[in-house]
C-alpha cells in the first residue's frame, strides 16, 4: 500500500470546503440568534426565570361533609397518607421501581404503568404511586427515607362513608380524575391525581363539596430546599351538605330490601323532599375511595346484578297496575266517562279481534269507578284505553311527569318512555297498533317509568294536583314556584277514594293496611315477558314471577308521606311490595312523621 502514488483528490476536497462554508454560515447565524435571546430579550426571560424560583405546593382542601336532615354524618374525611415518586431523584428508574415495589408490596409493573400514565409531567413533579397507606407502610417508607430520596410521603384527607353501604347510590363516591375528564372545562382547575365525585351527590355538588385547594408558595434555594414560605392562600374547606334524607327511614328501607333486588322511594308529597331512596343490591363505597382499582371494584362493575346502578333513578320498568289511577284521572278529566260509568267484567273481553283477559278470570261483574281501582279490574281499563286512544293517554301521562326527567339533583337520571304513534314511528319505523293502546292502559307495553317518577306521580295524586313536585335531596334546593296540574280536585278525590278502598276495604293492596293510619295505595304486578309468552307458559303450568309494585301515601287528608316499593321478580304486588310498604308506613308513624 505504501508505495502507491498520490491520486488527484482535489474535486472532493473542494466539495468538502463548500460544505464547511455552510457550517460557518450556521455558526454566524447562531451568534445572532443567541444575541437576540440573551441580550435583546433578556428582560423577558429574566422575569420568567424569577417566577420559576418560586415553587407552588398545593394543600388539599377538606371535602365538605354530607349529613342527613337530622345531622347524622353520611360522608366525612379521615386522615390518610399517600406516597409519590419524584423521577428526577431516581438514580435508575428501573431499579427504583423494583425497590419501591418491594417496600410497598406492589408489582413493579403497576408502578411503571402509573409513571407511564403521567410521563408528560416534568421530572420533578411527584407522581402518586400509592394512597391509603397502612401505618406499617408509612413506617417502612420513613425508615428507608435516606436510601430512597425519590419517595415523597404526604398526608391528605381521605373520603370516608361511616354508614357503609347505606344510601351509597345517593351519595356516590370519589375517584381520581381521569385523563379524559381532565380536558373538560368544568375540571379546568383540577390537577392530575385530584379526587372528584364520580356519581351521586358527590358528583352533582362536586364544586360545592370540593372546596378550594390551598396554595403554598415558597422561595427555594439552589438545592430546591425551601428558604421562605409565603402562604398565599390557605385551603378553603368544602361546604357542608345537608340532605333531605332521614337516616332512620333510609336505614329501615335498606333493611326491608335486604336480600332482594329493587328500589324504595319515600317522599314528602307536599314539597318533594326525598326522605329515603334505596336501590338494592348496594355496595360499600369505602372499598374503592382511592386512586387505584382493586378487584372489588371490577367485580362490582362486572356484576350481572348491576349493584352500582341506582335503580330508583336509572331503572326502567313497566308501571303495571300502578298506572291505573292515572288512567282513571285522565278518563274523568277528559270527560271520556262520568262518575257513574260502569263496565261489566266477565273475565275477558274481545277488542280489535283479540281476547284480552282480566287478572281475575272469574270476572268482577259490574265495576264502578271506585271498584276499578279497589279491585284493579283490567277490563275496566281496557275499555277506557279503547275509548281514549293512545294520544290522550300519553298526554295525561306526561302531565304526571312520565317520559321526562323528574329534575332530581342526582346525575344521569333516566327519562323513561311514554309511547305514542310518533315515538313508534321514530324508533321502529312501524305504525302504532291499536292493540298496543290496550296494553298501555294497564301500564304494560312500551310504557317505561323509573321508580322515582312513580313516587313523583304518587305525590301528585296525594297533593290533589295542587302543584307539580320536583323531588330534591339537597336541603335548600326547594323551589317554591311551580304550576298546578290542571285537573279538578274533585276528580282526585274520586281516585283517592278508590285507592283508599284498595287498602282499607279488602282491595288488592289490603296488605299495606295499618290500623289507625288512613293509607291510600295501589299495587302492581308487571309481566317481565310479553303477554303471549306468559299465556303460553301458563298453559304449561309454568308461572314466571312478576315485578312487584306498591305506591301509596298517608294520611288520606293532608298527606305527609308518599312511598313506592319495587321488588324485582317479587311476585304479586299485594303479597310482596305492599307488606314492605306497610312496615315503612308503621315506622314513619312511629317516628311521628
Amino acid at each position: 500500500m505504501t508505495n502507491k502514488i498520490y491520486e488527484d483528490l482535489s474535486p472532493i476536497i473542494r466539495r468538502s470546503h463548500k460544505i464547511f462554508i455552510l457550517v460557518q454560515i450556521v455558526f454566524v447565524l447562531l451568534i445572532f440568534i443567541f444575541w437576540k435571546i440573551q441580550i435583546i430579550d433578556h428582560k423577558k426571560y429574566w422575569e420568567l426565570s424569577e417566577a420559576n424560583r418560586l415553587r407552588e405546593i398545593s394543600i388539599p382542601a377538606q371535602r365538605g361533609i354530607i349529613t342527613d336532615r337530622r345531622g347524622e354524618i353520611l360522608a366525612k374525611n379521615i386522615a390518610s397518607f399517600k406516597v409519590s415518586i419524584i423521577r428526577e431523584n431516581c438514580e435508575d428508574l428501573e431499579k427504583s421501581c423494583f425497590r419501591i415495589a418491594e417496600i410497598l408490596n406492589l408489582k413493579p409493573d403497576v408502578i411503571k404503568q402509573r409513571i407511564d400514565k403521567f410521563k408528560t409531567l416534568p421530572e420533578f413533579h411527584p407522581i402518586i404511586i400509592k394512597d391509603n397507606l397502612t401505618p406499617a407502610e408509612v413506617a417502612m417508607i420513613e425508615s428507608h427515607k435516606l436510601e430512597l430520596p425519590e419517595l415523597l410521603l404526604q398526608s391528605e384527607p381521605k373520603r370516608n362513608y361511616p354508614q357503609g353501604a347505606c344510601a351509597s347510590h345517593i351519595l356516590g363516591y370519589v375517584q381520581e380524575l381521569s385523563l379524559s375528564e381532565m380536558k373538560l372545562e368544568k375540571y379546568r382547575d383540577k390537577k392530575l391525581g385530584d379526587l372528584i365525585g364520580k356519581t351521586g351527590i358527590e358528583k352533582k355538588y362536586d364544586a360545592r363539596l370540593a372546596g378550594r385547594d390551598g396554595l403554598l408558595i415558597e422561595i427555594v434555594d439552589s438545592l430546591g430546599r425551601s428558604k421562605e414560605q409565603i402562604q398565599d392562600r390557605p385551603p378553603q374547606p368544602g361546604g357542608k351538605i345537608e340532605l333531605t334524607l332521614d337516616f332512620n327511614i333510609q336505614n329501615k328501607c335498606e333493611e326491608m330490601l335486604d336480600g332482594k333486588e329493587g328500589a324504595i322511594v319515600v317522599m314528602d308529597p307536599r314539597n318533594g323532599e326525598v326522605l329515603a331512596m334505596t336501590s338494592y343490591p348496594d355496595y360499600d363505597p369505602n372499598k374503592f375511595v382511592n386512586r387505584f382499582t382493586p378487584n372489588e371494584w371490577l367485580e362490582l362493575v362486572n356484576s350481572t346484578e348491576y349493584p352500582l346502578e341506582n335503580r330508583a333513578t336509572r331503572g326502567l320498568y313497566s308501571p303495571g297496575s300502578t298506572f291505573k289511577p292515572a288512567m282513571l284521572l285522565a278518563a274523568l278529566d277528559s270527560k271520556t266517562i262520568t262518575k257513574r260509568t260502569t263496565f261489566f267484567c266477565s273475565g275477558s273481553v274481545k277488542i280489535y279481534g283479540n281476547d284480552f283477559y282480566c287478572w281475575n278470570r272469574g270476572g268482577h261483574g259490574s265495576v264502578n269507578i271506585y271498584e276499578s281501582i279497589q279491585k284493579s279490574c283490567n277490563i275496566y281499563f281496557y275499555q277506557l284505553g279503547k275509548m281514549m286512544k293512545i294520544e290522550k293517554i300519553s298526554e295525561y301521562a306526561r302531565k304526571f311527569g312520565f317520559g321526562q326527567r323528574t329534575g332530581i339533583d342526582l346525575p344521569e337520571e333516566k327519562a323513561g318512555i311514554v309511547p305514542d304513534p310518533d315515538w313508534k314511528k321514530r324508533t321502529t319505523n312501524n305504525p302504532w297498533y291499536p292493540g298496543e293502546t290496550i296494553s298501555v292502559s294497564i301500564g304494560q307495553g312500551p310504557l317505561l317509568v323509573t321508580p322515582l317518577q312513580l313516587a313523583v306521580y304518587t305525590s301528585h295524586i296525594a297533593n290533589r294536583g295542587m302543584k307539580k313536585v320536583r323531588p330534591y335531596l339537597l336541603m335548600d334546593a326547594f323551589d317554591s314556584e311551580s304550576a298546578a296540574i290542571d285537573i279538578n280536585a274533585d276528580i282526585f278525590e274520586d281516585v283517592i277514594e278508590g285507592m283508599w278502598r284498595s287498602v282499607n276495604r279488602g282491595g288488592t293492596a289490603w296488605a299495606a293496611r295499618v290500623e289507625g293510619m288512613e293509607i291510600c295505595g295501589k299495587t302492581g304486578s308487571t309481566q317481565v315477558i310479553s303477554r303471549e309468552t306468559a299465556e303460553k307458559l301458563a298453559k304449561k303450568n309454568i308461572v314466571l314471577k312478576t315485578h312487584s309494585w306498591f305506591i301509596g301515601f298517608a294520611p288520606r287528608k293532608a298527606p305527609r308521606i308518599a312511598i313506592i316499593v319495587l321488588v324485582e321478580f317479587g311476585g304479586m304486588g299485594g303479597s310482596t311490595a305492599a307488606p314492605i310498604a306497610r312496615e315503612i308506613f308503621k315506622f314513619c308513624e312511629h317516628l311521628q312523621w
Partner: protein
Amino acid sequence: MVTRTQLNYIDWGLIVLLIINSLIGIAVIYSSSHHLMGNYAFKQFMWLLVSLGAIFILISFDYNILVTYSSYLYIVCLILLGSTLIFGNLISGAKSWIKLPFFQIQPSEITKIVLILLLSRTFSEFKGRSIKIIHGLTSVAAVCVPFLIVAIQPDLGTATSYIFILAGAVLLAGINKKILILFLIAAIVFGFLGWNFFLKDYQRMRVKTFLFPEKDPLGVGYHIIQSKIAIGSGGLLGKGYLKGTQSQLRFLPARHTDFIFSVIGEEFGFIGVALVLIVYFLFLARIFRSVGKARDRAGVYIIFMVAVLLSSQFLINVLMTIGLFPITGIPLPFISYGGSSLLTNSLAVGLILNIKMRRFVNL
C-alpha cells in the same frame, strides 16, 4: 507499527481542543448534577481518560487495516445491535444498552465509527464524477439496517446521525440530479410512512411540540420553554458558575445531557456561549482543514464524514435548546454527559489523527 516520523505528525492541536471541550463539559456537568446522586462529573472525567487511552491505541494501527476489515466490524455491530433488542436494559424508554460487569456500553454509538469505515471503503472505490445508482443503493441499504434497529430501540437521535454520515459520504462523492430527485422522493415516501406507522406517539408529540411549544406548556413543550428561559435569563455575563436558577432549581430537564448548552447559556451568559461557539468552531475548522491532508481517497472520506457527524450533532443540539429543532435526544459531542458518546466521538477524532500522521507515503 508506528514509526518515529509518524509520531512527529500527530496533530496535538486537535487533541488539545478535544480536551478543552471535554473539560468545559465536565465543569458544566458538575454544575448541573452535583446535587444528584451518581457523581456524574467524576464518571465523565474517568471516561475522558479512557477515551484518550483509546485514541492512542487506535492510532497505532494503520487506518487502512481498519478500512479493509470494516465489513467484518459491521457484521459484529449488527449482532450487538440485534442483541440489545433482545437483552437490552431499558434506560429512559430506550433499549439501547448492553450491561457488562463494570460498565454499560451503547453499541449504537460504536456503530457510527464502523459505518464511517465501511462507507469510506465503499466510496473510495468510486472515482467517477458522481456515484452510480447501484452504489448509492448498496450504501443506503448498509445504513438502513442499523438505522431501523436503533430507531426501534427507540433512539431516533442516534439513528438520525447515521443518516448524516451517509449524507456526508454521498455529498462528497458528488451526486447527479436524477439520483438526488430519487433520494428526495424516497425521503418523502419514508417520511410519510414513518409518521403514520413507524413513529411512536411520544416522537410525534415532539415534532408537534417543536412546531407549537406553547400548546403544551406542561408536557414536552415544557423542555423547550424552560430551556429558552434558562438561556435568555443568562444575559450577557450569565448568573455565574453553580448559580443558574433554572438548572440548579431543576426546572430544566436533562440538564447534564441533552440540555447542557442551556446551562452554559444560563450560568456563563452570551460571553460564555460565544466562547464555547468559538472554541468549537476552531475545533471543527481544524477537522475540515484536515480533509485536504489525507493521503488517499478513503482518508478524505473518513475525515469528512467525521466532520459532518460532529458538526451536525453540535448544531442540531444547540438549535434544539433554543427551539429551532425538534427534541431528538442528540447530545452535544464531548460536552454532554455520556461515556459511550464521548468514547465514540474521541475514536472518530482518533481516526483523523491516524490519517493525518500517515499522510506521507514512501517515507
